[in-house]
């Protein structure tokens, strides 16, 4: 098709849509809504998977916790560090003072800033919490209007909120409250030489699994060691459960899509006469298919693009939290989510394809069905 004919056909397609502007706009809105719902769900799951994986990768290779018959137990720092350091392949072992305590707004994770962590925080420009002070991550559920925050761990303690951390500083501190190490030990009921667990770094990622038997045997007390892979698996399993529930939202979206397609297919009855007329004055089936294609793309592409943009904003626009709360049941603001270019492209193309391609194909059906029909039958049939 030459450029001038293509221009004529495109102009005619736009004019044809303008004959029923309300219908065209409504169709575009339906496509947009379908894409928004579908893409928001898929993008949210994809973004959270990517973000959680990144967070876990930034964490320690292994986490060692002491276990007793009664459950978790504090870990003696000097003894545990020495035991871990004795295993070939371990490059670092850092005690962590962290645990979950009760705040007025709900449970929060607190972490005592150890000397090794302090250096990293100071590099990031964070003033370390002094005695009686607390630094809150952006995702910590706590009222910041009150000057003091009362926490309940092994004991009641009140802290002055010193700083609210920006997510830009560190994603890993998004849902963590930082305390002076002595305050953290007191709140969690740890003795001065005790820690909650031990973060172990190994020389090579592949050694995480291989080193487990030696590392377990090195401790003079029973331990439970969590690998990075297990942590990732747990995160993905939780997401699969929540994401599965979110996918239920796709059921009404799918039904809406089916209705849209049926509407496009049933358009055949209304368009028979016109198709017959077009054919009577020399339009070919190919011309009619092109006209349908241009019309469906003219309504579908803006709808899809707007829907994708809306989904992108809902998932990734900073501060937009309700899609996560609605779809995945998040009760606290999530960390800023991000996507890898490959993952995002797959999601966007999938959604665009799932909505746009069936819609375009269904819109072309009337023209294709006319291929073998006599124009006279179409014109007379359309009048019946």
């Amino acid at each position: 098709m030459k450029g001038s004919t293509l221009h004529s056909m495109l102009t005619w397609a736009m004019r044809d849509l303008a004959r029923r502007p309300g219908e065209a706009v409504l169709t575009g809105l339906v496509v947009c809504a379908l894409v928004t719902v579908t893409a928001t769900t898929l993008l949210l799951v994809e973004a959270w998977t990517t973000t959680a994986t990144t967070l876990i990768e930034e964490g320690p290779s292994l986490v060692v916790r002491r276990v007793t018959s009664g459950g978790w137990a504090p870990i003696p720092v000097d003894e545990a560090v020495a035991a871990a350091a004795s295993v070939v392949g371990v490059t670092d072992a850092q005690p962590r003072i962290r645990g979950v305590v009760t705040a007025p707004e709900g449970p929060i994770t607190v972490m005592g800033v150890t000397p090794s962590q302090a250096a990293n925080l100071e590099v990031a420009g964070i003033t370390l919490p002094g005695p009686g002070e607390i630094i809150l991550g952006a995702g910590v559920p706590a009222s910041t209007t009150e000057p003091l925050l009362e926490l309940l761990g092994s004991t009641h303690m009140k802290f002055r909120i010193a700083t609210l951390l920006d997510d830009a500083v560190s994603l890993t501190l998004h849902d963590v409250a930082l305390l002076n190490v002595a305050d953290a030990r007191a709140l969690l009921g740890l003795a001065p030489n005790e820690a909650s667990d031990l973060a172990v770094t190994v020389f090579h990622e592949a050694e995480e699994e291989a080193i487990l038997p030696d590392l377990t045997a090195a401790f003079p007390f029973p331990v439970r060691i969590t690998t990075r892979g297990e942590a990732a698996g747990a995160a993905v399993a939780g997401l699969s459960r929540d994401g599965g529930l979110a996918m239920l939202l796709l059921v009404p979206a799918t039904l809406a899509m089916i209705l849209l397609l049926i509407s496009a297919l049933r358009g055949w009855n209304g368009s028979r006469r016109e198709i017959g007329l077009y054919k009577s004055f020399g339009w070919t089936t190919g011309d009619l298919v092109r006209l349908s294609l241009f019309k469906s793309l003219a309504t579908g592409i803006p709808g899809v693009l707007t829907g994708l943009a809306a989904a992108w904003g809902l998932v990734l626009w900073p501060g937009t939290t309700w899609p996560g709360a609605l779809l995945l049941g998040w009760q606290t603001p999530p960390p800023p989510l991000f996507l890898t270019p490959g993952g995002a492209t797959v999601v966007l193309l999938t959604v665009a394809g799932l909505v746009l391609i069936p819609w375009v194909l269904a819109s072309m059906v009337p023209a294709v069905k006319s291929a073998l029909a006599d124009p006279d039958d179409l014109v007379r049939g359309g009048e019946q």
Partner: protein
Amino acid sequence: MTLTRMDVRSVSLVRTNRGGATATLLDAVDVSFRAGAVSLLVGPTGAGKTTLLHLLGGLIRPTTGEILADDDPVSRWTAAHRDRWRRQTGLLFQRAELIDDLSAGENVLAPLIPRPGTLATKIDASRRTLASLDAAHLERQPVRNLSGGERQRVALARALVADPALLLLDEPTAHQDDTRCELILDVVTAADRRGAIVVVASHDARIVSSEVADAVYALDGGRLSPGDTNPGHSTS
């Protein structure tokens, strides 16, 4: 595109309705139409005039027999080939058959859209054709607002706009006053002079009594018989 001759050979058309009853709309019709001549089909309502025009235009296929365009068996061609061939034809339907929510200008423009040429030249052609039928003032009006006569002139303009080699006109002067009737006959004569094959079906006494037709054929009950034939024209 040029056509010199359309031949209808032993063409019959039988329709079966939903109840299973059959009706013979055309019965063994043999006739030839030549370029540069106007042929007039006359006959009572239901005689088969419209059916014959639609067969000639490739809108339907005969049950038996064949339609030849310069010896090409058009009626045997596949739908795709007939679609393309139909670009040589201009058909005025008996009831105009316009697209009601388009303007008159757009209705006339529609046949030109998939054909080569810029949109501007196509719009110019549609305006010229409307003007030739004293309908230039109707260009922007939605055809649903037009009178019967105006609608028929717009439909005639649509049939003429691509300068078809085969012009098929079903009651072209319907709803027209005498002045407009003469105008339409002039347009028909002009098409004839530029070498088109022109076939007109009409009840209108003004056409029948005019000298526009080179040959007149009478259809009755689906059977064709020669009517008042002008010298130099013959039925087969």
